[in-house]
């Protein structure tokens, strides 16, 4: 009888018109974001994009200048007190003179949990380090300790602020394996990163931030797709010939640039452009490459704010609810 969709579950995270200013600096400048329970979201952006500031506000460590933060429908302070949200911060936050197990046991006790800590250490992959002093742990081990500490309240939402900064490749892989295994159980994870490969490999969804705002939002494939397509380049005998070809292409809707005698085109119609260059011009040494997420990242974030979000119907900045 009832054919309407079930009422939407409470959002894990709901940011509305979030602003945070430090004097004249607008670290977060009108950020809106919805994260649904169970999503693994990468918060991707260059340094200074406002990622950490946003996370601090979600955790109630700082108050927004304007706007609203809801974590499972409650305020950050309530969510922290209830243990529904936990975080792995980038640095610090550890006492170096106590052991790994003591750190986790203490954190657990503060949440009223006096049970054994070994399961948490195992889930974070540091069971064998239980008796080691925190100060003797490597950066990667300390990061997994922070992860174990974040697990003790069994949070529904886990925030990670650039969690693998300073880790070696193996450390990063181990860390993400632990996070991924844990997220598979249905935990919502939001992680800030400026490692593109990390966002690409571990997130279901990428939220690109720059200048304190969301500039793109979608799956890794969508982000790449919209941002560029393919990159073509070809050489000409002289810069003048390259410029002539570039003018033609630009006027026909494929903006091209010239560096020396080399012409570079980013286009989603790479076949047509290649055919044109090889048949109607004197281009040689033609190369076609897939655009990396890095390209997408640079193009979307370096342009600063995209105020024309609704111009392009395929833009991944379209409603976040449309994805998944």
């Amino acid at each position, binding site marked *: 009888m009832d054919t309407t969709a079930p009422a939407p579950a409470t959002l894990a995270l709901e940011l509305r018109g979030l602003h945070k200013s430090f004097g004249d600096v607008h670290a977060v400048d009108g950020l809106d974001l919805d994260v649904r329970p169970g999503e693994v979201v990468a918060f991707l952006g260059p340094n200074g994009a406002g990622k950490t500031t946003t996370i601090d506000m979600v955790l*109630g460590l*700082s108050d927004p200048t304007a706007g609203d933060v809801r974590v499972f429908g409650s305020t950050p302070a309530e969510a922290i007190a209830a243990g529904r949200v936990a975080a792995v911060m980038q640095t610090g936050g550890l006492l*170096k003179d106590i052991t790994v197990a003591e750190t986790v046991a203490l954190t657990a*006790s503060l949440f009223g949990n006096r049970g054994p800590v070994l399961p948490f250490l195992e889930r974070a992959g540091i069971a064998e380090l239980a008796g080691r002093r925190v100060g003797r742990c490597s950066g990667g081990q300390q990061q997994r300790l922070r992860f174990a500490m974040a697990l003790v309240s069994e949070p529904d939402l886990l925030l990670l602020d650039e969690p693998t900064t300073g880790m070696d490749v193996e450390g990063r892989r181990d860390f993400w394996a632990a996070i991924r295994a844990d997220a598979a159980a249905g935990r*919502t994870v939001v992680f800030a990163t400026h490692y593109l490969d990390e966002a690409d490999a571990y997130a279901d969804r990428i939220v690109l931030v720059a200048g304190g705002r969301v500039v793109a939002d979608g799956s890794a494939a969508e982000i790449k797709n919209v941002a560029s397509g393919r990159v073509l380049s070809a050489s000409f005998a002289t810069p003048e010939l390259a410029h002539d070809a570039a003018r033609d292409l630009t006027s026909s809707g494929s903006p091209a640039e010239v560096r020396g005698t080399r012409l570079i085109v980013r286009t989603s119609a790479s076949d047509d452009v290649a055919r044109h260059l090889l048949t109607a011009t004197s281009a040689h040494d033609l190369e076609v490459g897939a655009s990396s997420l890095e390209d997408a990242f640079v193009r979307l974030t370096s342009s600063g704010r995209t105020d024309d979000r609704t111009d392009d119907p395929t833009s991944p900045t379209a409603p976040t609810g449309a994805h998944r």
Partner: protein
Amino acid sequence: MSTISAPGARGGSARPAASVPRGISRTYLVLELRRLVRNRRTLVFSLVMPPVFFLIFGTSPAYAHQSAGRGNVTAYVLVSMALYGAILTATAGGASVSVERAQGWTRQLRLTPLRPSAYIATKLAATMALSAVSIAVTLAVGSLRDPQMPLSAWVGCALVAWVGSVVFAAFGLFMGYLLPAENVMQILGPGLALLSFAGGLFIPLGDGLFADIARFTPTYGLAELTRAPLTGDGFTLAAVANVLVWTAVFAGGAAWRFRKDTARV
């Protein structure tokens, strides 16, 4: 009264309805005590230096025959050293907050239900426990070298020194918030030694300009009060006023910085 619990719509993870500690956490307090015992530096400053200083400064044979009110001068020096140990312990304990703040530990604690005031209370409780042990050890070691004073003076001096040292825990806390964390004790250690001279803890103050200035230092009032049960002079108004004023300054300063530190920006 109500036995109905609201389970709430949680994403699967059943959580025990454990009571979250809102005040001092016993686990935390025990861990703090363990940290103090493990810290060799702390143990040297709190438990080794004060009795050793007594053995160096207080065991001249002449002192045993000189009167200091209700006891001998040996006892006078011993009580002074016990107070010195208590002050050093309390100051270091209060100042350790600044180190933990610089390490981001207090920020980490804000991601737990523990209240910032409970954190401070836990640190103070552990510090005061060590301060008591410091006084006891110094007096115990000293008792082997023939100090003379009535039992009431043993107990009275120890109690005043212990309770009074909380003023220096507030001092350490306040300074810890003000000074750069990496070298807070490097600054406070020599500072305390100077203050201890001003309090007449190492050598009697005598008369003169230094003695006149010393009367306004925070160690002076507390030292006078601590030795009162031994000297039989009673609590002088000047000493009581000194302690009250400095308590207000340190506790007020610590509370002010603490509020600033925990305010959300």
